[in-house]
């Protein structure tokens, strides 16, 4: 599947910079396309999708990987819900490698991984909890998420490593909604591993309407 022709940013119906370490969300209507731009490069963007009509239906990492038969998110990947429906598709990708097996950082897992003082560092799960509260959801609703621009190779022996991102400044990924979805993002604050090059930076989100046929 080739990359779709680039939509013109001047045609975007929405454009917003998401500051480093901050959350963002928006309801994407069916047919709308969201672009996430890694402005400076090597910036992980954690993401969750919920069916706007019934948020108990939500993005499922395992269902997505099972349907695809392979372990990484890339151009053409269908993002599948916990009811087996396609919620969205990756229609353009200038980075080439995204993760959905490594989850999001949390104060609690940071304390385990990097020592107890890191419990008091901002984390994606804090962002998700705050952003989801706007839609009446809570920690219970946080599932295994997408990590755009995050590079987590898994080798045949099972070795599982967050390594330096391959995303260069200006790389982007375009996601087209196939149903109305609540799209929730945490611009990852992690400074203890290479997912953000040890330096969290802003990203930009743009939305286009479905092109007229």
């Amino acid at each position, binding site marked *: 599947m080739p990359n779709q022709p680039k939509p013109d940013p001047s045609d975007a119906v929405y454009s917003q910079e998401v500051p480093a370490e901050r959350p963002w969300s928006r309801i994407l209507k069916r047919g709308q396309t969201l672009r996430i731009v890694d402005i400076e490069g090597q910036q992980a963007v954690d993401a969750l999708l919920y069916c706007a009509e019934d948020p*108990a*239906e939500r993005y*499922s*990492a*395992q*269902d997505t*990987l*099972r349907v695809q*038969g*392979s*372990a*990484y998110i890339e151009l053409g990947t269908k993002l599948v819900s*916990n009811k*087996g429906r396609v919620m969205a598709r990756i229609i353009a990708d200038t980075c080439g490698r995204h993760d959905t*097996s*490594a*989850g*999001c950082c*949390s104060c*609690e*897992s940071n*304390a*385990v*991984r*990097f*020592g*107890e003082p890191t419990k008091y560092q901002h984390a994606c799960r804090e962002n998700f909890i705050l952003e989801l509260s706007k839609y009446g959801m*809570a*920690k*219970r*609703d*946080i*599932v*295994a998420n997408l990590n755009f621009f995050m590079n987590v190779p*898994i*080798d*045949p*022996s*099972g*070795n*599982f*490593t*967050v390594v330096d991102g391959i995303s260069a400044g200006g790389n982007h990924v375009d996601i087209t909604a196939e149903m109305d979805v609540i799209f929730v993002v945490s611009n990852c604050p992690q*400074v*203890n*591993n*290479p997912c953000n090059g*040890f*330096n969290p930076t802003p990203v930009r989100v743009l939305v286009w309407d479905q092109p007229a046929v």
Partner: protein
Amino acid sequence: MVGRTKAEISEANRRRYEELRAAGQEATPKALPPATNLDGAPIAPQSVISREEVPSGWYDTVRLRRGEALRIVDTSGLSSVSVIGWCEHDPSERINCADTAKVQWSAALSKGRVILSDMGRVFLSLIEDTSGAHDLLMGGSTPASTLAAFGESARNTHDNFLAAASKLGLGLRDIPPCVTFFAPVSLDAAGRFVWNGARKRPGDFVDLRAEADLLLVLSNCPHPLDPARPAAGGPVTLVRHRAPPAAADDPCRTTSPEIARAFQFTDRLYEGRM
């Protein structure tokens, strides 16, 4: 931290990360205990609390208290068992496959490894394991996957989890990604999932020691990658038993500094120090 520049902090964090990675992927795997023999680790009759046989396609719910263990036996060598679980006193805390892989630097579960919750605590320790061939990444069967494989609707793990959760007052929102035992899934160099059927043997078993008070759901449905479907499947035996107490040098507790911390945080929950 006073006096250090941002670049110096970044450099120090990178150094710590590389040290943890080297320990986690080079030293830790070498120190893991060998797999249990098929005829090893007998359970003393007086330690058995209960025993259940789960037919192929079905599920069971097990309340497992801290210090108890659950043996899952794939009697026929044809089954795979998908497992989810919650903290009994707060089901918003649940099994987390991503943290389990990330914290242990590996998606491969085997004897000596643990399964973590989303709150930085240890839920289950693999104190015995004959197999070492389990799946953390791909998950269980669903209505769509069984329809595609069998050409008709069939019992599946997704529906089993939903039914079991509902009987506990939980629902779809509470069902996390699952761990599937006796599901030899690995990745090829291109990242595609591969089934290593030769790693399944009749009588394979795993002993999961609960490190917290847990509600577990176990679904005995063929894994969606198992090429032997729909013929695959057989009953599995669940034996709830009193595990031997963990010694200070318990292999599951001492694999890495990360895991030692996860146990420390888990123990605090039961020392009334949270």
